[in-house]
């Protein structure tokens, strides 16, 4: 009987409007996660449980309503006269959650497969992390069924969902201050670091224990529900076992979480083992973390576009482009610095993640400016200049070099400049998806100069730049001198 009922309940649950809407929202969230950056699969997997949260919430409410169906429709009197007892009905409601979880598995698998098909995808996703999302869906649905029997009122499901979200927010807000493992008692444990780590091992997440914890929670709720509707002995026995597993897995995951002694030791070991692989192309050396070598062509493309437009001497100067990851302090949920990279200092730094789509233009602009800045021997990035107008003559040209041959980068520069104009006097922060890695600050005057240059024929500007390269690259040169040389209006600074 349970199997027959489960088939009916499965079909109804999968067609429930809430579940369908939740599925669409989850698809959209997953699509956003996948398309935001060139996939780093060992980081993308962490985002899947959060993306599945709409489906989990929908499963909670829909399963709760299904469990309450007989009560809501006053059919309990009729059902009480049936040979089928409540236990098979509850078991059917619980079993119906498995196909919903399978849909979640299919969604995650399809998403990861799609991400992995990106030619610049790197890393290997953790199956344990990927499994967490579908298990959260299962847990949420089980909570819905349990509430239907333990608190049989229709508002219990939506209230539980809101309560779950509120508790999660509170745990995320104050958890790290209480202890490194506290976050792991939440069902969802997203990673808030701004950039992907170079290796999944660096994450040091106790994903296996967390999966056991979630499954035991779901099993405990299911057992409690079965006990409530009649199978008292076996239900309570199952609940006791599940509770013991929840406690054991909870303690184990907290002890192994980043920020704890064991977790930090794993992080340190993993970071120490990260040796970058370097490859030289002409006078430029590119260094990437293991597995990220496939991204070198993306960086080379930007470097080449800039260096093709500078005089030969500057273009042949040695340059080092190095991938750098941030060190992540799990206890404070903050980035505390960069992982050491091999080779000489002041390389051009690229982050681990490389954006895709519209935002990729900002990253290419940022990298292009860094390359141009070194070609022009401009002062180090982030050093102090006059408010709103740095003194270096080549500032505007550096921006132009980064944007001229790349429509995406040009659009990013114009967008940033527009923001700066709207905001009034100040510095132009060249947007990057990894703000702590890119502390470039350019004045509005340089930006205006670059845009004026972009509006002119490239060949004409290239000629002027070549003619006045010595001035543009001179440490004592000023932006006003550069404006005169390039036939531009005097900068307003």
């Amino acid at each position, binding site marked *: *009987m349970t*199997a*027959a*009922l489960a088939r*009916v309940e499965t079909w109804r649950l999968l067609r429930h409007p809430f579940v369908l809407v939740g599925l669409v929202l989850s698809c959209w969230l997953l699509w956003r996660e996948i398309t935001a950056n060139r996939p780093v699969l060992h980081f993308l997997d962490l985002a899947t449980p959060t993306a599945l949260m709409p489906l989990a919430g929908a499963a909670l409410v829909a399963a709760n309503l299904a469990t309450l*169906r*007989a009560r809501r*429709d*006053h*059919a*309990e*009197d*009729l*059902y*009480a*006269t*049936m*040979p*089928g007892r409540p236990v098979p*009905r509850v078991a059917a409601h619980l079993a119906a959650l498995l196909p919903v979880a399978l849909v979640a598995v299919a969604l995650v698998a399809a998403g990861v497969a799609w991400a992995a098909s990106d030619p610049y995808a790197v890393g290997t996703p953790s199956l344990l992390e990927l499994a967490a999302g579908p298990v959260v869906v299962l847990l949420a649905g089980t909570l819905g069924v349990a509430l239907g029997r333990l608190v049989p009122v229709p508002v219990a499901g939506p209230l539980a969902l809101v309560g779950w979200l509120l508790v999660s927010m509170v745990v995320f807000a104050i958890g790290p201050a209480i202890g490194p493992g506290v976050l792991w008692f939440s069902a969802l444990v997203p990673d808030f670091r701004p950039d992907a780590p170079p290796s999944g091992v660096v994450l040091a997440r106790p994903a296996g224990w967390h999966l056991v914890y979630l499954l035991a929670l779901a099993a405990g709720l299911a057992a409690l529900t079965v006990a409530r509707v009649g199978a008292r002995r076996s239900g309570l026995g199952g609940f006791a076992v599940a509770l013991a597993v929840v406690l054991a897995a909870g303690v184990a995951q907290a002890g192994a979480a980043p920020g704890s002694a064991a977790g930090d030791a794993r992080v340190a070991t993993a970071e120490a083992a990260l040796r970058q692989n370097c490859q030289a192309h002409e006078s430029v050396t590119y260094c990437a973390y293991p597995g990220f070598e496939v991204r070198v062509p993306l960086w080379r493309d930007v470097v080449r576009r800039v260096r093709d437009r500078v005089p030969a001497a500057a273009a042949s100067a040695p340059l080092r482009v190095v991938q750098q990851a941030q060190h992540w302090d799990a206890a404070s949920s903050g980035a505390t610095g960069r992982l050491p990279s091999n080779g000489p200092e002041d390389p051009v730094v690229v982050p681990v993640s490389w954006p895709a789509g519209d935002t990729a233009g900002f990253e290419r602009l940022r990298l292009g400016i860094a390359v141009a800045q070194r070609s022009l021997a401009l002062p180090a990035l982030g050093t102090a200049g006059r408010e709103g107008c740095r003194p270096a003559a080549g500032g505007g040209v550096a921006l132009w070099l980064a944007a001229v041959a790349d429509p995406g980068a040009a659009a990013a520069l114009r967008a940033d400049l527009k923001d700066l104009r709207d905001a009034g006097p100040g510095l132009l922060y060249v947007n990057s998806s990894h703000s702590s890695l890119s502390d470039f600050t350019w004045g509005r005057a340089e930006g205006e100069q670059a845009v004026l240059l972009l509006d002119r024929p490239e060949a004409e500007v290239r000629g002027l730049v070549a003619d006045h390269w010595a001035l543009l690259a001179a440490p004592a040169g000023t932006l006003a001198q550069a404006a005169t040389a390039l036939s531009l209006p005097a900068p307003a600074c």
Partner: protein
Amino acid sequence: MTSPSVAVRGVDVQFGRTHALRDVTFGLHPGVTGLLGPNGAGKTTLLRLLATATPVPRGEILALGHDASTAAGRLAIRRRLGYLPQDPGFHRHFTAFEFVDYVAILKEHTRRRARHDEVRRVLDLVGLADVRHKKIKALSGGMRRRVGLAQALLGEPALLLLDEPTNGLDPEQRMRFRELLSDLGQSRTVVLSTHQTEDVAAVCQRIVALHKGTICFTGTPEELRGRAHGHVWVGTERAPGAWASWRTGAGGHRSVGATAPPDGVPVEPTLEDGYLLLLGDPGVTA
């Protein structure tokens, strides 16, 4: 006489200070039995006890050879029971087929193909074959009532308990229902709880009448009607002390009571007359 398929002995039910049933004892045999009684007489309480929806607090119910006070007995009864409650509690978002199919599963019809055949059969029996894929919320009240009846007929139950089954049915549907019920009553025990004495007169072989929680009559419709012999008149005026009297379409007054009106002419009583007299003055018909 063979032993009854349902035997109710000394059943007593109390809700707070209200006695819903008092020392109810009767037996049911195959055939259609009408359970008559006004609102609050205890008909629904009695049907729910027979249907094992509620435990028997005092007394004994043996149905189809099983004791309703034991878990095993209740399960055995439920396996051979068809029950149409007053309000079956339809799932409005189910289609008629889905609802009856769901109930069929709860009635342990687990083999899919056979179950679907059975669901189609009972929907056909109640004349809903054409609308079986319509959602229940889109069906009329009469159609919903027939969906309820269809689920009760699943598995050809040996004991069929129907609480107000003809409520909401139009005359044609009631006629079809009577045809169906008379067929069903050939081979099984059917209890029809209703206010409609026409339905009882049309299809019931026996009547159990309840009044204020006690049984005030058991017998055949003929016997109940016969008790009103000499107590029903048609005259120009209302009979003094009549339990019920009303002006008929022909202009005279039809009176039911112990005393004849001055110019009253005795007429052949109907089952309704017997029932009215039973409720109005049980002493007259005793």
